[in-house]
């Protein structure tokens, strides 16, 4: 192995770059010959230049719980993750299948509830989901689609098989980092892009805009689209702004909008201007103080009634959080089978449901071997990493699980795949996942790339940015043969 990799260990995990015998996988050869020839100091200099550019451009997220409201750059590792064409095809068809089924499921849940009547999914489970919105049952949503933008988290096990870890059907974030990471890579390694058939991701803004425009009320020729943000203090504010710019639409806060006559307007310097489609980055709970949390200062009073009447479209729809409930996640394979009569292309991770008696006792008996998750938490919060937890922590969780079994699921600890990350003088393996972005407009489209998240701490399995994770650019290749041909030259 070249210099920067001379101490690299795959340590028995599935490594994205190297086979167990430490030879590079074919689709990484071109990259390794370029990166491997660098001195540590050269690599560090490139890395520092990228970090400084991110800081200058304000590609940051805000750290909560910090009085100063510190903005940090999302740690970024220059070595990209590469996904061969054939592997991507598998991912893409799997994601399309999954989002199609989830949308059929949500449409059913909020209308006929056939799947509950047929007892494929227990009615109790849906009704008790924290994000189920019974007040929106029977409300017709534009084109019958609920999840328009989905960020599905995929992981690979020790044999390199892809699994779905969770579906983020509410407000998935990270697309802006996917785009900025790519820009940074183009600046750092311009020559590589000429030698590898990397599929571009920069059409995301256009695709997103088309997806949103597709939702506009019928008969509106030139719909007004806006991005609704909780405001500048939100941790993902950079992303909200960035996506608004990519689409060329205004970014608004709740206080910029006003509902009159069941229509939504924005306050402009020339008076009120009607809005037709809202890409909201605010959760249901805070969207409308008249319907949801009355203490919310972030939303727009009356927006839910305008939505109900079909005068304004929301992406994603209200009530999609049911699909994000980790107990519902466990049933997605059944959901796919029920609506599409297919087996899932991308399997779920084995999941034990607290609500299920047998699963629950298994969970409690094996807390030292399992990962326990609260069903409605995200961002790596509310988790118990069984093997790493103390006896006291496990006991605390056992109490919580007994008190409210519906609220917990458990999964075996996955040996996530690893990818080289530059640490000081050379590369070391770190665990990664992958968040591709799926858009559902007039059809389902998957952006050829995504956000590869890295657990930067040695041995850590938690990749969330809120828990100190970082990211990498993700290169999806056009064509494996072409890639091979380049290799052989």
């Amino acid at each position, binding site marked *: 192995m070249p210099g920067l990799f001379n101490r690299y260990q795959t340590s028995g995990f599935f490594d994205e770059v190297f086979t167990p015998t430490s030879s590079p996988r074919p689709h990484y050869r071109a990259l390794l010959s370029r990166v491997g020839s660098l001195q540590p100091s050269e690599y560090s200099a490139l890395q520092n230049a990228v970090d400084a550019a991110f800081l200058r451009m304000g590609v940051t997220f805000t750290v909560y719980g910090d009085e100063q409201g510190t903005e940090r750059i999302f740690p970024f590792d220059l070595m990209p993750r590469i996904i061969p064409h054939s592997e991507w095809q598998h991912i893409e068809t799997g994601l399309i299948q999954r989002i199609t089924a989830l949308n059929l499921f949500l449409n059913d849940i909020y209308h006929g509830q056939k799947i509950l009547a047929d007892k494929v999914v227990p009615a109790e489970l849906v009704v008790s989901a924290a994000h189920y919105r019974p007040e929106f049952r029977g409300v017709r949503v534009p084109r019958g689609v609920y999840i328009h933008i989905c960020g599905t988290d995929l992981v690979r096990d020790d044999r390199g098989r892809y699994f779905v870890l969770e579906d983020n059907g509410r407000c998935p974030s990270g697309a802006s980092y996917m785009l900025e990471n790519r820009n940074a890579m183009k600046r750092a390694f311009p020559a590589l892009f000429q030698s590898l058939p990397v599929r571009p991701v920069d059409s995301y803004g256009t695709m997103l805009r088309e997806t949103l425009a597709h939702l506009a009320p019928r008969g509106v020729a030139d719909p007004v689209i806006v991005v609704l943000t909780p405001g500048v203090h939100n941790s993902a504010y950079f992303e909200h702004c960035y996506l608004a710019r990519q689409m060329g639409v*205004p*970014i608004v806060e709740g*206080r910029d909008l006003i509902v*009159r*006559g069941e229509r939504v307007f924005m306050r*402009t310097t020339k008076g*009120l201007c009607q809005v037709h489609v809202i890409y909201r980055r605010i959760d249901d709970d805070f969207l409308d103080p008249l319907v949801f949390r009355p203490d919310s200062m972030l939303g727009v009073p009356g927006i839910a009634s305008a939505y109900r009447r079909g005068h304004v479209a929301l992406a994603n729809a209200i009530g999609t959080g049911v699909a994000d409930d980790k107990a519902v996640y466990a049933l997605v394979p059944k959901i796919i089978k029920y609506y599409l009569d297919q087996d899932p292309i991308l399997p779920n991770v084995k999941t034990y449901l607290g609500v299920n008696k047998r699963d629950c006792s298994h969970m409690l008996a094996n807390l030292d071997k399992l990962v326990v998750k609260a069903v409605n938490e995200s961002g790596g919060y509310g988790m118990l990493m069984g093997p790493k937890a103390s006896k006291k922590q496990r006991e605390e969780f056992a109490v919580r699980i007994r008190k409210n079994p519906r609220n917990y699921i458990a999964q075996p600890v996955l040996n996530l795949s690893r990818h080289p990350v530059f640490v000081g003088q050379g590369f070391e393996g770190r665990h990664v996942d992958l968040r591709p972005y799926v858009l559902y407009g007039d059809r389902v489209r998957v952006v050829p790339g995504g956000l590869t998240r890295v657990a930067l701490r040695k041995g850590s399995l938690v990749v969330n940015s809120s828990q100190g994770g970082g990211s990498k650019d993700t290169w999806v290749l056009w064509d494996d043969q072409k890639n091979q041909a380049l290799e052989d030259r």
Partner: protein
Amino acid sequence: MLSRVADSIYWMARYMERAENTARLLVSTRDLLLDAGSEGTSQERLWGAILSATGDEEGYFALYRRIKGRDVASYLTLSRENPNSIVGNVQAARENARTVRDQISDELWECINGLKIWFESVAGRAESRNQTVAFHERVLLGCYHFQGVAASTTPRGESWHFLRLGTCLERADQTSRLLDTCSGLSREMPPHPDAQPLRWAALLRSCSAWHAFQTRSSKLDPCKIAEYLLLDETFPRSVAYCVREVKSALRSLYGHEIRGAAMPDPVRRAGRLHADLAYAEIGEILERGLHDYIDDLQTRMIRIGDSIFRAFVLYADLTPVGVPEMIAGPLSNVSGGDFAEHQSQQ
């Protein structure tokens, strides 16, 4: 354009202008002190006058018992307790820029953000701690950079007009304050025989007007200087020039000639003030008393600011109900409450 966005662009420009003026004031004060020699009492008086020029006396005395040059400079430069300090103003400008990032060029954002990053860098911290001229000069460069990038990357639409409004109202206010301070000071004759012309020279430098004025007159005649800074329409930091710019930005915002009863309130106010300045005469002003004149000027500029806020920011809420499409032409004579100074750090 969203009302909130217009408001933020306006304040972003105002805060940057304010940071620039404070930095220049501190640089020229330091020069003046070096030239005038170190006569303790007059130093103290001078720093006191500077505090009153920036309107920071109250805040300063809440922290310090006595006036000391070093404390005043530090309070005006980087005090966390002083939102009006240079660092505080740049921070507020950046917060406003952050809320309108989708409306301003990347270059403009990077320019404000770059200044903030420099403040927090090792080099910036060292410079600011030591109160070096280099620190204030770096701030000035950053502000000129901002002006240049704004002028060369902002499309000449609403963004540009609100930028100009913020910049010019702030600039006119600062120039008039500095002139007021300087003339107040010169009533008390300093001990050093050369100090008075030095002081008027420092005033010109504080307004970046030294060279421009020199080409006009070789003598530092205070009346001529007052005339130049108040009434000269060719100098871009004079009050008259700035008010004319405000008037023209407002005319562009309304986009068409409005006369008589339909004339919007901000246009009427700015137009009147501009006319008064255009036909004013320095002799009359001095006879009436420069201080009172400037006081009146500042009150009128504050009213113009209020009126702009009501017309463009509060206006949408006053639009009649049930109008489904865009309604053109803000209301002309909206009466409203007091204009609360915009809080950037809500």
